[in-house]
């Protein structure tokens, strides 16, 4: 576990044999492809984990496991999960009525609007504190399609259009949490979605900044006894997307989308989402430009 400041510690009991069954081993294309630290594995097996699971379960059953110990561990895990879930909900309530809109409020208003549909969260690249993964019930494989895989910036918009194209033929409702910085990389994909009638609800996580590097800039400024914010924007130099504020709803409209915004009042978000859902169900992509908290 890396604390973010260079230390490492293990959570694995000493002398435990660690076996890995994963197709990640097959991703490596070059000796420079893998990054960061490696997990020390005793027996690495390159293979499909999902396909392996039934055989693994049978092998565990035949080994005659200690059922009461397993049940006790299960009970402890369920209790820990329930307690953690309560803490997460309490954390989501913080800043609930704030403006700009909290990421928790945005994500839960969104879920409220789509929960009765066969929904698929096709992209969420901007770090909304993982609220969908923490609070939405991710019970089907297409509920969450994952991230870029390499912290790719600009992945979200084109990936969501591609996934929405696939979902269209399967009758699924595609929704993306679209970051403003991400959309600045390839905004032309909005036209592609409208041209090919790809229904997609893009709810913007518009924190008016690329934002990811702000703490690095702040840290270096502090170390060098320099002020990070020169006063023009709310963030450190070169990290904000404001002054002028980009009107993404107008950008989307110009490319054939239905769009609304900027939405800064959380009370307006629910009605706007319900309206947008109806538009997408009619076959047109829709974008809501929502002003949010940074993370």
């Amino acid at each position: 576990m890396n604390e973010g400041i260079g230390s490492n510690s293990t959570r694995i009991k000493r002398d435990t044999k660690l076996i890995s069954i994963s197709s990640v081993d097959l991703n490596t294309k070059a000796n420079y492809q893998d990054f960061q630290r490696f997990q020390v594995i005793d027996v690495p097996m390159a293979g499909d984990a999902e396909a392996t699971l039934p055989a693994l379960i049978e092998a565990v059953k035949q080994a005659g496991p200690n059922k009461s110990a397993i049940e006790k561990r299960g009970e402890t895990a369920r209790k820990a999960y329930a307690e953690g879930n309560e803490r997460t909900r309490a954390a989501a309530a913080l800043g609930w009525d704030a403006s700009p809109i909290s990421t928790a409020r945005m994500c839960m208003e969104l879920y409220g609007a789509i929960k009765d549909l066969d929904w698929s969260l096709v992209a969420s690249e901007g770090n909304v504190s993982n609220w969908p993964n923490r609070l939405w019930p991710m019970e089907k494989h297409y509920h969450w399609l994952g991230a870029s895989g390499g912290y790719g910036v600009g992945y979200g918009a084109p990936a969501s259009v591609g996934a929405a194209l696939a979902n269209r033929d399967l009758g699924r409702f595609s929704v993306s949490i679209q970051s403003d910085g991400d959309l600045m990389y390839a905004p032309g994909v909005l036209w592609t979605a409208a041209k090919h009638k790809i229904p997609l609800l893009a709810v913007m996580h518009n924190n008016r900044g690329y934002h990811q590097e702000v703490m690095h800039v702040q840290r270096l400024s502090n170390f060098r006894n320099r002020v990070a914010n020169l006063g023009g924007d709310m963030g450190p130099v070169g990290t904000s997307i404001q002054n002028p504020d980009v009107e993404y709803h107008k950008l989307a409209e110009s490319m054939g989308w239905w769009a609304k915004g900027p939405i800064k009042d959380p009370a307006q978000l629910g009605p706007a989402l319900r309206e947008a859902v109806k538009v997408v169900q009619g076959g047109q992509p829709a974008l809501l430009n929502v002003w949010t908290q940074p993370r």
Partner: protein
Amino acid sequence: MNVILSAAKNLLFATGLLFAPLVLAAGSAEKGKVAYVQHGCWQCHGFVGQGSVTGPKLAPNPIPPEAFSAFVRFTNGAMPPYQKSILSDGDLADIHAYLQSLPKAPDYKSIPLLNP
């Protein structure tokens, strides 16, 4: 007796010196809201101190001003320390006052969207 009293006075003085740099005068919540944005606290902790994956919650009920000051000045973790030349004691006190002024969050059990 005089020796004991003298020692007690010296101890109190030394303790005062030890904590003096960390004691913040009462600040202004209104100025603190401006300073909170200007000094970048919102970037990780959110505009109302609600916290996020990048920084813990600061409000409501922020830690006491002395602990707050000590942490901001001397932290050596993921958050960078802010020296007085960057963030004055006055601004720090104002920021603390702003955090103290923030209202309590609603009980999540009262929010239908958080209890599907």
